């Protein structure tokens, strides 16, 4: 399998803050990979490094077989618009649409026109006066119309209304079907985006905690819920990511998949078990340090 993106033991420090900590993961060519995690987990930092806008303090990032930093042939094949992208003074939409093709060899003006029309991006308003959603729309136009072989979307849905998000999904899938490319997409709208991904990478405090196919990731955790003592009994010995308790009821997200042993114990204890959703998994990893069930005293919520 060829990897479009290969991150090897990348650490990035800003002063005493370690934004990425020995992170390693790969994104196969042609896949749509979700980059998930809490705010400050390191998503934007790793995207900046992949896009050649930043350099690792140590480790190596390779994109399409090359180190992207200052490598012009690779940079023309990457599209990355930051969630807080700055534009030159007094820029309007037509400035962006006029200059982008000069840098993007695969630019498609029809895709750009369709998105501009669909998002209803104002033509006469200065970009610095755009709303959050309108800025996201411009970023999506740049990302999709550039048809870059490696396309990075950093929180593309910020401020977008439901109709605009639906348009983004439709054009993304339609265009990717006709012009396959590798997409790395960071988002907090996990349930809504989950079906897009064929791979997920979850970051927490700069570390890669999950790097797996989407379906495999679902097997990484289980939610056990019921009466608190019974839940504790069934969860004994398993790594607990997250606990919610209300009155005498409890729900815990624990590591592992649903197997016959777990089902049998759950049945005997009268508790429910269900595979954790991707959102549960991200929330669980982001909730804090995991503990082991037999060390748990009381409930954490």
């Amino acid at each position, binding site marked *: 399998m060829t990897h479009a993106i290969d991150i090897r033991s990348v650490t990035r420090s800003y002063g005493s803050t370690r934004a990425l900590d020995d992170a390693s993961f790969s994104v196969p060519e042609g896949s749509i990979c979700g980059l998930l995690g809490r705010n400050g987990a390191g998503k934007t930092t790793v995207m*900046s490094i992949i*896009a*050649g*806008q*930043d*350099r690792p303090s140590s480790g190596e990032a390779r994109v399409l077989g090359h180190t992207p930093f*200052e*490598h*012009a*042939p690779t*940079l*023309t094949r*990457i*599209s*990355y*618009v*930051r969630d807080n*992208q*700055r*534009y*030159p*003074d*007094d*820029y309007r939409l037509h*400035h962006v649409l*006029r*200059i*982008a093709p*000069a*840098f*993007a*060899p695969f630019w498609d003006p029809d895709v750009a026109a369709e998105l501009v029309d669909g998002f209803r991006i104002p033509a006469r308003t200065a970009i610095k006066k755009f709303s959050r959603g309108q800025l996201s729309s411009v970023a999506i136009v*740049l990302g999709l119309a550039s048809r870059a072989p490696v396309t990075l979307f950093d929180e593309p849905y910020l401020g977008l209304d439901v109709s605009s998000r639906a348009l983004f999904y439709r054009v993304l899938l339609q265009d990717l079907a006709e012009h396959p490319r590798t997409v790395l997409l960071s988002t907090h709208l996990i349930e809504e985006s989950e079906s897009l991904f064929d791979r997920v990478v979850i970051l927490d405090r700069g570390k890669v905690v999950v790097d797996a196919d989407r379906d495999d990731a679902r097997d990484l955790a289980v939610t056990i819920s019921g009466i608190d003592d019974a839940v504790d009994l069934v969860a004994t010995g398993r790594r607990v990511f997250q606990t919610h308790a209300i009155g005498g009821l409890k729900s815990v997200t624990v590591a592992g998949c649903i197997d016959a042993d777990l089902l049998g114990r759950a049945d005997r204890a009268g508790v429910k078990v269900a595979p954790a959703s991707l959102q549960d998994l991200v929330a669980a990893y982001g909730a804090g340090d995991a503990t082991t069930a037999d060390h748990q005293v009381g409930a954490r919520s």
Partner: protein
Amino acid sequence: MSSITPTVKLHLNKRETTFLVPLYITLLVAVVSVLIALIFWRSGSQPGSDGWIIGSRNNPGIAYSLPGFLVYLGVQSIGTTFPFALTLGATRRAFTAGTLAWAAMVSAYLAIVLAVLTMVEIATNHWFSGFYIFDIYILGTGNIPRLLIIVFLGALTSLTLGGVFGAAWVRFGNNGPRTLGIAMGLIVAVVALLVVPALPDLMDAFQLWWLAVAAVVIIAASSTASWAFLRSATVR
């Protein structure tokens, strides 16, 4: 694929700011110069007299107004354009080279525009009224080759000086331009301290080409410093 040409296009993308605003400023200077000349006329000075010509040719309005805008243009050519250039896929090296090429193009454009206006002024016997707007000492007193060099080097110096402040801001945030400004002030002060005792001799020996050499040194130093700042700059 080099991104030097796309970077030049990126800077030229704001056509009004690049090509028309300098003309608006020049036009405004011309209008103000004419108004001042009219005031002198009303106060008794005679167009065409020796005093009128000497006074008019000492008008430094264009030197006060245009460089201010060009320094701003230089600052924004890096300060706000660099992050977008990286987003589009420019390398730092190509961005620096493309920005210098664009600055040279803008400087050449301004030199040609002012040369044409000066030629028109001379051909019309100073706008048929004895108004000296471009045929002035600071622009070479009607000497077109000298005017071309003065305006080109002056504009390029302003743009690259602005650029290095923009690059310092991109690299170091607010501390960058502040520290750079203090460093430049100190350098000027130290040079002044060293030169002041010999100033009368230097004034006697002064040659115009010294200014050209100084401009070339400033342009080269600013461009090199901009590259040094940008090569390690990250966008966050």
